[in-house]
């Protein structure tokens, strides 16, 4: 297990350091990199993200990482976990400040949260999630776990079977998605204390068989 190599894809806008802190706290070896050979040779990939969709996807494309990830994730079936914008980029397109195409790994759109009375946007804070599919992300999670959310847009997949957890915030919002080797979470596990550490542990334990 110690030989498992985990790589956090660095494309300039992610909070790579926070994610690395969590994973190395669990005892894994983790690299933060934008180098093609390091990313290709890793067993597990993590695509973090903070900020606006447009900046994120443009950075990913201009660094040539979008193509590389397409190859690794779609053809070589490498397990990947997207976080926040990292997860949103897996969508077909986003409506954040215009229309921007995503990586289109999981069909669907990234749309703005509805602003309602009592539900200000952005959706910031700890919220209770309801998991539908437990393996691999939530196999260690307690019932009604809290996770930290911080976003104004959310991923609405075309096929609802790809939703592995949702959260209520005046409307039903996708909290996590899953399709074959691709996983993504809207919340920030690296900022969700014990629950977040448990999620990383169960994700890595769960995908180890493919790595």
């Amino acid at each position: 297990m110690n030989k498992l190599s985990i790589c956090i894809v660095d494309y300039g806008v992610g909070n790579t350091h926070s994610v690395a802190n969590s994973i190395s706290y669990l005892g894994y070896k983790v690299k933060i990199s934008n180098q093609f050979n390091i990313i290709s040779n890793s067993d597990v990939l993590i695509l973090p993200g903070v900020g606006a969709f447009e900046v994120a996807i443009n950075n990913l494309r201009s660094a040539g990482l979008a193509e590389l990830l397409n190859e690794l994730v779609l053809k070589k079936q490498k397990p990947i976990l997207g976080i926040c914008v990292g997860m949103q980029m897996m969508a077909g397109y986003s409506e954040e400040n215009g229309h921007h195409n995503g990586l289109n790994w999981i069909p669907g759109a990234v749309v703005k949260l509805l602003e309602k009375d009592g539900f200000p946007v952005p959706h910031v804070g700890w919220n209770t999630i309801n998991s539908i599919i437990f393996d691999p992300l939530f196999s260690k999670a307690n019932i009604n776990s809290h996770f930290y959310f911080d976003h104004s847009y959310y991923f609405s997949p075309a096929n609802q079977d790809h939703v592995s957890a949702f959260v209520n915030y005046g409307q039903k919002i996708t909290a996590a998605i899953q399709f074959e080797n691709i996983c993504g979470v809207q919340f920030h596990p690296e900022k969700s204390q014990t629950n977040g550490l448990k999620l990383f542990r169960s994700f890595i334990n769960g995908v180890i068989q493919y790595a």
Partner: protein
Amino acid sequence: MLKKRIIAVLPIFNGIVVQSIGFKKYLPVGKAEIAIEFLNSWGIDEIVVVDISARKNNLTIQPVFVKMIAQKCFVPLAVGGGINNLNDVDGLIRSGADKVIVNNSVLFNTQLITEIAKNYGDQCVVASVDVIREKYTCHVFDYLNHKIYYKNLDEVVKIATEAGAGELLINAVHRDGSYLGYDIELYNKICNIVTVPVLACGGAKNADSMADLLNNTKVSAACAGNFFHFFEHSVNISKSILSKNSDQIRVDMAVNYKESDVDMYGRLNKKSDITLDNLLYLKIEKEII
């Protein structure tokens, strides 16, 4: 459901955490990384670190410092102190900060708020406004020049949110370090003006003052600086007390005090001898992640 947040605010003065009283007096508390490690393991919801000496000395809170304190911080970390441009923000985010706090820019450089929001999203920028009450009116306090700012409070918070601030941190200077409780009227006023989450800071004495704030206003978070430092498991105990009458508090740490009684000062009462006897042979497994 979305929980109300309990936030710890750590003012940093020349590199160490201090207790601040009325924005004038500062008492040393200790090292930031140790305070953060404890607060995190006690179940705090978020941590705010502000270098209050930076702006005065023409410095900016340093990415190396943030990198060090972020190491064992598994909750959101907001940092501030002398942030002047996007370069500063970039360094801080890369070092492990999740949000940046701007204070001076709210008054003198709202363009920076817009730029941060555009590049990192509006959830990334917290506008901090210092407020001082004179009898019935609340004024904006210009911390750097130690005087009342010429624009009124309503105008300043509106400008800040329109510029792109995702959250508002409202510090009541007149309650800072006073243990008099939160200025409820002030926070009701602010919550009526803006739609973004409001974080209330200044005057917390114990869990009861937080309950008072959360029950009587629409704020998203109760912040406290001083009282968390003075007793063991301060966060777990406060949150357990709060959660007795409210389902709006996140209590999911392995250690909680839901079954314990507290006295009028918020201190734990000793459990009965029978309960303690029963605990004697109870095996409690360590939580393995």
